């Protein structure tokens, strides 16, 4: 040995040590997310959709509920070029950008307002399933043993339960005239609340009832694998409480997969809403929802395809955007891909 090796690390060059790049997991994930073009496009579209939902009254040229009966099924001239086979009975008029529906409401305005319903669902769905599902799954996975067994069997039972049928029954009951007549009763209060939310209450309940189970299972699995990690054991040896271990040590470690799963589940919630509205169990008219618009348009799809295609297009774009963002998030948060690109 030419030189004695200094064991004390303090002897090392200060600058060399301090130039290490300090990057948290989240910074790293964000960096990789913005490098993913599809995810960025998805994110930007979602952002624009939310702006559109918030400023719907500024963007929409007409109020969504305004009926102009003489303008029934009006079709703009350019539509004929796009759909040469369509044979509108009504007059051609460029008064409405995308045409008007069967009672003369502006299609474009209704699509803009429809964003509100879909994006509220995209916000509330994950909220409900995260709050209920993550709490439930964390408790089940963390405490394990018999409790876990019981809690998961409950989920299994609920999972086997036909959720859609349940929502339909709920709505049929609470929205029927049978439930309404007595003010002061529970059913009355619920149906009033539903009416005040424009008929979205049951959509939330329906999504909440079915979505949290998947989330609970996922969370439980993640917590279960985390629980055995040595740093959780270490947290226990320093006297951390169960709550502290759950929220400070386990949750931040599993939030990645949860966020990804939730983002990828959003299109599912939007479809559920659209489906319910399509079969006439969604929002109350005249509140526009893409699902109900598609349903109404489908009846005249041969003569006025514009009434179906544009709401469907809006739905498709939204779902693509969420899927792209979800995929991007999954790649960005994948620990195996850390530090790449």
């Amino acid at each position, binding site marked *: 040995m030419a030189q004695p090796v200094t064991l004390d690390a*303090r002897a*090392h060059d200060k600058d060399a040590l301090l130039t290490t790049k*300090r990057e*948290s997991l989240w910074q790293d994930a964000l960096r990789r997310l913005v490098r993913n073009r599809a995810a960025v496009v998805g994110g930007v579209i979602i952002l624009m959709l939310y702006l559109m939902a918030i400023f719907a009254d500024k963007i929409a040229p007409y109020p969504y509920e305004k009926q102009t009966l003489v303008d029934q099924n009006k079709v703009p001239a350019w539509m004929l070029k796009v759909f040469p086979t369509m044979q509108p009975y009504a007059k051609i008029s460029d008064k409405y950008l995308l045409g008007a529906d069967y009672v003369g409401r502006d299609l474009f305005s209704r699509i803009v307002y429809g964003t509100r319903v879909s994006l509220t669902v995209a916000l509330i769905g994950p909220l409900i399933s995260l709050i209920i599902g993550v709490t439930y799954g964390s408790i089940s996975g963390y405490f394990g*043993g018999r409790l876990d067994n019981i809690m998961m069997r409950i989920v299994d039972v609920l999972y086997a339960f036909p959720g859609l049928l349940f929502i339909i029954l709920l709505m049929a009951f609470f929205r029927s005239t049978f439930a309404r007549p007595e003010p002061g009763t529970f059913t009355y209060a619920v149906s009033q609340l539903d009416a005040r939310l424009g008929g979205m209450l049951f959509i939330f309940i329906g999504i909440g009832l079915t979505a949290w189970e998947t989330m609970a299972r996922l969370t439980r699995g993640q917590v279960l694998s985390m629980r055995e990690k040595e740093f959780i054991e270490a*947290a226990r040896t*320093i006297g*951390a409480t169960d709550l502290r271990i759950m929220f400070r040590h386990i949750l931040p470690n599993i939030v990645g997969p949860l966020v990804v799963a939730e983002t990828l589940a959003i299109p599912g919630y939007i479809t559920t809403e659209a489906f319910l509205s399509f079969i006439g169990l969604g929002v109350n008219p005249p509140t526009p929802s893409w699902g109900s618009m598609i349903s109404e348009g489908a009846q005249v799809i041969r003569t006025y395809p514009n009434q179906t295609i544009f709401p469907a297009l809006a739905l498709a774009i939204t779902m693509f955007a969420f899927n792209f963002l979800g995929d991007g998030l999954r790649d960005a948060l994948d620990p195996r891909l850390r530090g790449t690109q």
Partner: protein
Amino acid sequence: MTELLTVEGLETQFRTREGIVHAVNGVSFSLREGETLGIVGESGCGKSVTVMSILRLIPSPPGKVVAGKAIYQGKDLLKMSDEEIRHIRGAQISMVFQDPMTSFNPVLTIGRQVAEPLEIHMGMSRKQALERAAEMLAMVGIPHAKERLNDYPHQFSGGMRQRVMIAMALVCTPQILIADEPTTALDVTIQAQIIDLVKRLRDELGMAIIWITHDLGIIAGLADRVAVMYGGYIIEMAQVDELYAHPTHPYTIGLLGSLPRMDETGHRRLVSIDGLPPVLLEKPNYCPFAPRCKYAVEHCWHENPPLMSVAPEHQVACWVDTQTGRER
């Protein structure tokens, strides 16, 4: 010296599909103030389970402490409420683990992790706790401790992480530090550094240490007393010099015989111990080492020997006097 921790008749079992595993079978020892006790034994002999039982960190089910006492400051750790034992962990008795690579939470900064015991036990604000954490990191030899508080575990090397782990264990100045093979995952030069560090901190902070290892070489220069474990029993316990000078149990003799020694001259073959460690599915009514023991006599197969005093502060659990080859 007064006794800080007294463990008596500790028994821990695990329920498995094959049956009940008797991991620890009536272990008794005491730890005095400022003393370093080495617990030595091969894998699966119950070293870790013993200390985990004391801190009540055995996952239950399947594990269970079925008998015994662990008296610390006049109170039995094994009978405390969960809340009481939680206040002991990390504040009065803390632990350093074997693998520094997996013992840190990858998403929290080092500073927050080292400061965590202070937040839990001392009720410090985050700012205060981080300041103290920086002092502690400097004390264990992390350069630029203050700047490195914001770093994440993956930005530290294995040796550095083990230093950080020691800082985390000692940040509340506990009375007892339990080190569960803290140098096993490190290479030899780093091992030496960590041992020197622990020795220095022991002198500065005056805590007692329970050092678990399978490496008799490490213990020699570090411990005051050594307990050798085999098959869930302590089979020999003595002052460190006494143990190395006069190993009495055939297993201890075998262990020392399998080690190269710096202080011997001439050539000697390293001896290995034949056979495998016992399966702990039943509590034997014979000496657990008998199947591998070349000194075994008839008696060994009928009765499991208790710890017997052979010299002051030197106890051994063996029916045979290995020096004379005769039964005790």
